[in-house]
């Protein structure tokens, strides 16, 4: 069970559609702050 969890966690997050969307949302927030800092 634990090894399954570790194996899953070690996978490239882009293999999961859900993780891809979460990463996209996190990147959006980071870039909003980047734009605010640049302006």
């Amino acid at each position, binding site marked *: 069970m634990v090894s399954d969890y570790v194996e899953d966690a070690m996978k490239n997050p882009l293999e999961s*559609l859900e993780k891809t*969307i979460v990463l996209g949302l996190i990147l959006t927030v980071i870039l909003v702050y980047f734009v605010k800092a640049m302006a």
Partner: protein
Amino acid sequence: MDSEFLMFIVRWLHVVSAIMWIGLLWYFNFVQMPSMPKIPAEQKPAVSKVIAPAALFWFRWGAMSTIIFGLILAYLNGYLVDAIMLGGGKGAKVTAIGVGMWLGTIMWFNVWFVIWPNQKKALGIVQVSPEETAKAARTAMLFSRTNTMLSIPMSFMMVSYQNWSFM
């Protein structure tokens, strides 16, 4: 032709091209990829030999059309160079659209120079060894997922130009 009308036509062509491109990107990632393991082996060629090549044609030319009309639109708006320079002191809106343009450009590059060459191998349009076919399919999948991830901030930044004051 009136310049306002020209700008409207170019913006409309940019948006409909982007719908074609990102619509098919999301079709691949939200529908086709998760469905493939559920399709019986004898039916898989319907997707890999018929549907996927047709979808990839409109996908890559949608990407090309989006970037061309997008660059023309930025030029007509007078912020092409400032946006590429991520603002150039012209305010947050121009920085935001510049970030969106860079993300879109990275995505366009991935489509034409990573996803399409690898999909040709993965789908058997170009004949390669079975090991190379599997490697190409994985590379195409990961870069397609990368573009899906980037499509979220890219569309956010593009649309936020209209309403940046709320940020």
